[in-house]
């Protein structure tokens, strides 16, 4: 059962990833990107990590894909993109991807992944949370600081002088 689901998810993920690259229409490309991200969420579900899967859906599909979609919709694409059609580049890209995938796969298969016990019960997300605030607390604080710095930076960058508008009475 898991195998059929896995195969279906693989087809969805890889197929929509290829579609996201190859689609002529940018909107359909970003919809296909949503398919890829949703497929990855499905993989996390199969791996007994529903917490990560739901965050993948909420953050990647719900926010980042929306951001991409929104940007694409507001852009006049003829003005900023120059199409470069080149068969050789395409095949070189596919070849490079195959080389990378095969070498990564070889590394994974060589790393003893086959001897892993696969029917262990899933880790409770409460344990992960407890680990984060006890053993891994420096990493948590570092992440928090980086995120806070990023948000502050974004706010500083997005700040603008208020436009004086004579028509507004306030």
């Amino acid at each position: 059962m898991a195998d059929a689901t896995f195969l279906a998810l693989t087809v969805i993920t890889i197929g929509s990833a290829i579609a996201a690259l190859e689609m002529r229409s940018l909107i359909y490309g970003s919809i296909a990107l949503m398919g890829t991200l949703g497929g990855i969420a499905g993989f996390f579900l199969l791996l007994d990590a529903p917490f990560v899967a739901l965050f993948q859906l909420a953050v990647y599909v719900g926010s980042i894909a929306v951001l991409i979609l929104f940007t694409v919709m507001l852009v006049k694409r003829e003005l900023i993109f120059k199409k470069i059609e080149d068969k050789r580049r395409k095949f070189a890209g596919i070849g490079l991807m195959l080389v990378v995938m095969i070498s990564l796969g070889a590394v994974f298969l060589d790393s003893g992944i086959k001897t892993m016990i696969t029917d262990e019960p899933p880790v409770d997300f409460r344990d992960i949370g407890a680990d984060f605030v006890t053993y891994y607390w420096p990493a948590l604080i570092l992440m928090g600081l980086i995120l806070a710095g990023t948000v502050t930076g974004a706010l500083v960058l997005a700040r603008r002088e208020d436009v004086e508008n004579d028509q507004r009475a306030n």
Partner: protein
Amino acid sequence: MSVIAPKFKLSEFIKSLFDNAFWGLLLMVLVGLPAVFMVLFVIEMPVINGELLTPFLALSWIADPSRTLPIVHAFMATDMFRIMAFPGFGFAALLAAGTIFIERKMLAKLQLRVGPFYCGKFEGILQLMGDGLKLISKEIIIPAKADKPIFWAAPVLFVATAAAFVALIPVAPGWVVADVDLGLLAVFAVIGFFPIITILSAWSANSKYPFIGGIRALFQMVSFEIPLILSLLGVVILTGTLNLSEIAASQSSFPWIIFLPVGAIVFFITMLAELERIPFDLPEAESEIVAGWLTEFSGMMYGLVQLGTYLKLYAFAALFVVLFLAGWHGPMVVPPFPAEILTEGIVMGPITAKIPGLPLFTQEMLNGALWFVLKTVGVIFFILLPRGVFPRVRVDLLLSLGWTKLIGLAFVNIFIALGLLYAGVLGPGGLQ
């Protein structure tokens, strides 16, 4: 001679009825019955009580009153019943339909109008049915330059997402379609799909007003999702679980709104914004941009979007009840099922009818569902009320409200929850 249909002839009408009956019979005999027999030939029927369950036996069991209730019982235990009927789609759609009518009538009363009046004998109670018939019979018009696949898919996806949201809501103890361990996170994930569908449908219509409305909807939904999520973290901190059933069950002695009123207020305001209800109805501001992102929808496509909107309204109100108003908890008001019917049966003169399979629902479930519906209807009333009272806010006020004030208040709420936890008022060793 009729004015509406001048070429109407009663004889033609009766002839067409007979025609339809003839063709129906013919198709059933030539296609339907052979199909049934082929299915019966392939499927192995189960053996029950030493008898092979033939279709004849199954039909006679259904007609047997002493067997009917157990069959209904067995059907009610299936997932199909839960998804289609009680805690799932049917129940929510019924409440949503009621909401539409109540909204129109209540708004009319608030504004000293009459509202729906003529359809149905009493106060226009059949108005909704009439509207539904009208929507179904209307032509579906698709704009010439629309992106057809997305435009067709958007209403269906909208209803499907709203139904997925409804499926996560526990209505009574044990009565929930999908009892997910991470229910609240699943709710956040499902809410994230609404802006995508909205902006896609708005873009695919290839029209000015839907696009403006869609972009407004996107701004509003994405920026209010953050205070929405933050305002619910207080409840999660206090209960230590993300499962909605457990959160509802944890409020047996007091609802969380007593301890987290700030969170409840923030959640209520963000709820209004997510639902595009009136102080925040910029995405479909009918006096500025026709009907916002719904402008190009017609016929049943508009009907589907409307159904999805009200399903979403029910789901948000129910989420408020589950998280802050103690879900299904309430004083036991439903009387217990009379025990003599179970032991002696119903005595009607000389006849005594013993009905196996009673009671259909337990007392707890009926009481829980009753309180849940009462509270949800109350919350829905408070969601509808601003429509008769408030004007629409400006978009920059809306965004600054969401990004500065509500997020700040949500953090205040989180610190209140942490304070209650660390002071020992709640949590282990405290009240609960």
